[in-house]
């Protein structure tokens, strides 16, 4: 990698690491150790391909895609069948554990990995159905199905008035 490109990468990684980490924490439902590992893996892959990635219009969005795919690959390796985690991850005590945080992470942990990815992309990343479909290499119809299913499940777990947990 030329020095200019290497500097460009370093700048990019420093700027995006925080956001990628927060996304990863939601994807892993609060497993901060796994989240760190996923971000490192994603940044590593981006490093290897930086000369090409830096040419695409939106490297930040690309990085997010890599992260989600790294997460899904990890989930798949762990279990050949997609299903909600039976054993909830240990939520590391990083930051303040508000009731909202604990309840939300617990609810996220109960979703199948791909549904959780849909929720994170749609409501944390604010991606459209079509963009989410692109990240997941799925059809818009499949994303809609997953989204509807995940919302229904989250509504059941969190209650309609999820905001009651939020800090004033």
């Amino acid at each position, binding site marked *: 990698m030329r020095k200019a490109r290497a500097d460009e990468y370093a700048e990019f990684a420093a700027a995006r690491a925080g956001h990628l980490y927060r996304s990863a924490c939601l994807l892993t439902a609060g497993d901060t150790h796994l989240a760190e590992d996923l971000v490192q893996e994603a*940044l590593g892959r981006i490093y*290897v391909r930086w000369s090409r990635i830096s040419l695409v219009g939106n490297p930040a969005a690309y990085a997010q895609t890599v992260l989600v795919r790294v997460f899904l690959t990890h989930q798949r390796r762990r279990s050949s069948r997609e*299903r909600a985690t039976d054993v909830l991850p240990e939520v590391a005590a990083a930051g303040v554990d508000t009731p909202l945080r604990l309840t939300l992470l617990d609810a996220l942990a109960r979703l199948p990995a791909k549904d959780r990815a849909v929720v994170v992309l749609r409501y944390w990343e604010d991606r459209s159905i079509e963009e989410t479909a692109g990240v997941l290499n799925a059809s818009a119809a499949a994303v809609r199905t997953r989204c509807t299913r995940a919302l229904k499940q989250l*509504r059941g777990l969190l209650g309609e008035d999820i905001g009651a947990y939020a800090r004033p």
Partner: protein
Amino acid sequence: MFADQHEDPFEERLAAALHETGGGFDTDRTALAARGEARGRRTRFVRRAAVAGGTAGVVLACVGGVLVLRPGGTATEAVPSSATASAKPKPSVTATHATDEQMIETLKHLLPKGDFSEERGQGTESADDRKVPAPSAGLVFDDGDGAAAIGVAVGRVQPGGTEARQAAQCPDRVFVPYDACKTSRLADGSVVTVLQGYEYPDRRVDTKLWSAELVTPTGQHITVSEWNAAAEKDKPVTRTDPPLDPAQLTRLAAAKEWRAVANALPAPLPEPELPGSDLHARTDLLALLPKGLKVTDKSSDEGDYAYAVVDDGKGRSMVQVNVQPDMLDAADDLFGSSSETLPDGTRVAVSQGPGDRGDQVMWTVDTMRADGRRVVISAFNAGTQNEPATRETPALTIAQMRKMALDARWWSGS
């Protein structure tokens, strides 16, 4: 049906809760970024090492400043380059290490007559052991009609991998505006995409960037770029268009000289598996389509989703399929009281409703086996979900879609 953008108050609250929760996580970002870079460097190092070990039977021969890798040859055997050419070695075993200067000379040799300046080259030897070399050459070329920057980069990608597929696709105009883009297959099986676009996607400066991206069946990857200015950025436009037309760009990218340079590079690592990649929805969809339909377009990726645009002579019709293992938990949402259950427990639901646009219709046959394996096929009376109807009904009948969806072929590879 769930509306697209957070129209449900619950969705608003969920988004707010995610932001509050997600925003509460923090870590040492600098350290995390550094560890990510370290992992990337290690990956590159491993690639190099893997190649060094994997090509132990290949020896180096020096030919008038050009190194040729020949399998089973004797070390330091000098072979004139003409002899190498007449021996017609397989492209996959001819590898030419190139110096910075040789990269530049090769580019100049392949360009039409003109003046050259601001030459820069990067050979196949990396100054830094930890880094994979990225051979390239660039210069400013003036054929008399205005100075223009031209660059070529040579690399390797996993044949059939994501990068190879992406290189063989025109980008979505939604993301990258361009004037023209064409992907074609050359006689040797290489795929080349010629893109006539702009340096800045937002067109804040009208510098044109034309490029040809070529991937060979063995993964040699050559990108040629040219601008209608003497530099990519921060130089005024000197001419209406870049100097090489699409045909010339293609020829330059396809030149055999670059293939040999690519072969001198370490092979890329196989790409990690994407979930669902043990399925082959596109192949199965194309195989199961009723006879007599012309396929005018199809999805580029294998996996759990595929589409094909078919035409029976009465207009284009898009057919898409999702193949999803383990969807049992969604069964009750998908198969209502009007659905049918076959003797083997497979459930089938049929819907015929309006599509996303105007007079579009969308017919869907949804099937789920007793173990949760779902195949859902939809057909439209339009070529894409975003364009107006091209015909009254889809090109497939419900009976045909049903037969396809229930076929065992979808699951034969998983």
